[in-house]
């Protein structure tokens, strides 16, 4: 299997950004040398193969800067089914905000991290000089999903462990272990940076309208693409191809 940087970027952490995979790949990969596209070269690429993930997303310049010189190896506990989604209510089990409940803001699946809206924060003075006191900024620090947080049961608003089970309709759902109730996936899980809900998307100037996209103009005919276009443009082709040999 050929090396692809996209294998490191996991689905939940790139869902909200709604970017094409080829763009993420183009932004993330650091190619030092690539053989020219000529038959007398083997197709070989010399590039960075180990990446270090933090809060910065792989398609940003910050990520590229973090991965410039070295990349530390971090052990991450494997999880079979990811069960923390944007908009979920969680309870924090550690730190200064222990026992508080909040809404999941962002997901970094590569490190098993989530950040909670307005909780587990760090104050940082930025642009501080001798004359200027600096501007305080609040940064939400990441929390480990395996140890630091628990999902909240919507039935009694208390933290529970969860299990993935199937309903009678064959749907894969999260179930609270304590009460046996289904914890539904919040609607903001499906929202992206471009829209809150696919149905609520507002078409821009450059977009094709929905009516235009859904119009069916295809009529089946016994023609290839080129033959059809030639017929439409009244181009007549009387020449015929002599028999050839494929080998």
């Amino acid at each position, binding site marked *: 299997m050929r090396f692809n940087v996209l294998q490191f970027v996991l689905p939940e952490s790139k869902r909200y950004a709604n970017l094409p995979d080829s763009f993420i790949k183009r932004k993330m990969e650091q190619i030092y040398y690539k053989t020219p596209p000529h038959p007398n070269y083997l197709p070989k690429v010399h590039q960075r193969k180990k990446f270090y993930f933090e809060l910065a997303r792989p398609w940003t310049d910050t990520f590229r800067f973090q991965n410039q010189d070295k990349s530390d190896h971090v052990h991450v506990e494997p999880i079979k089914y990811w069960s923390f989604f944007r908009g979920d209510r969680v309870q924090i089990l550690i730190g200064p905000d222990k026992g508080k409940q909040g809404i999941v803001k962002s997901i970094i699946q590569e490190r098993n991290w989530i950040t909670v809206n307005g909780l587990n924060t760090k104050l940082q003075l930025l642009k501080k000089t001798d004359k200027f006191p600096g501007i305080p900024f609040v940064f939400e620090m990441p929390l480990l999903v395996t140890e630091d947080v628990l999902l909240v049961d919507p039935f009694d608003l208390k933290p529970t462990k969860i299990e993935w089970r199937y309903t009678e309709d064959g749907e894969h759902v999260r179930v609270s272990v304590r009460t046996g109730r289904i914890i539904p996936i919040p609607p903001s899980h499906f929202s992206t940076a471009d829209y809150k809900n696919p149905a609520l998307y507002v078409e821009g100037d450059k977009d094709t309208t929905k009516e235009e996209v859904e119009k069916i103009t295809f009529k089946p005919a016994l023609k290839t*693409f080129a033959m059809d276009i030639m017929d439409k443009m009244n181009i007549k082709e009387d020449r015929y191809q002599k028999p*050839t040999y494929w080998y």
Partner: protein
Amino acid sequence: MATVIKAFKGLNTVNTVIKSLANLSLNKSISSSHFIPQKILSVHRCAFLHTTSKKYDLMEFFDDPKNWPKDTVKVGRSWSEDELRIKSNEDLHKLWYVLLKERNMLLTMEHACNDEYVIFPNPERYDKVEESMKNLENVVRERNEAFYFLETGESGERPSVYVNNILGLKQCYKLCQHIIPKYCNLSWKEKHRFGFNGYAVRKFLRLYREKLWNIKRKNRNRESNAAITLLKKFPDLDIEALKHKYPSIDINKVLRHNKLKGVRRKSYIV
């Protein structure tokens, strides 16, 4: 004497030419008043019908000027294959050129922004256009293939076969179209030699297979070592997830490993 007469004649001809030229220039205004039947070329009527927008200058390579100062230019997603399948060939042909123009515009704008030291807004637009073009090509290929399968029983694609090269390795050879048949094309036969034999090639293949096996074996060892370190670091991790992550290794064998002697998992205690 004869030469002199010839020279005079030549002079005369020059004079007549100059006169006729002068007449032409003088008679221009007169001739325009008269009706001269011109031969109209039989161009098809489609040639007079302009379907493109009425900008023909180089500014078509640039974006709309009202988008220049913007930090973000919002666009939707790319065209999916299912959406393109319901469009007629003519529509696809037009859409291809719309996409091509958009791609050219984006590349030009990116270059212009780099020149001006300005951030190019939403560079992922280029990838969206590329993806749409790729999907469109796939749909056209699908339609052509359907036609050829119906008519000839073969896909109209360029055929390819897997052959053994002289090193004994499997290689995909794309067939070429020739005017003369294979048995009389001696130059092709000299250049293309498939198949292998000999002691040296067999030895090479033996060593090559050993190398491939070693790569596989080392990869499996590396994965089982990684699994052991993960089990040491997180004693209560989900075994199913570990199996899912490293499918090539035997988990039961890893759990019985000497390195995991002191590690106490909850499942052992229960």
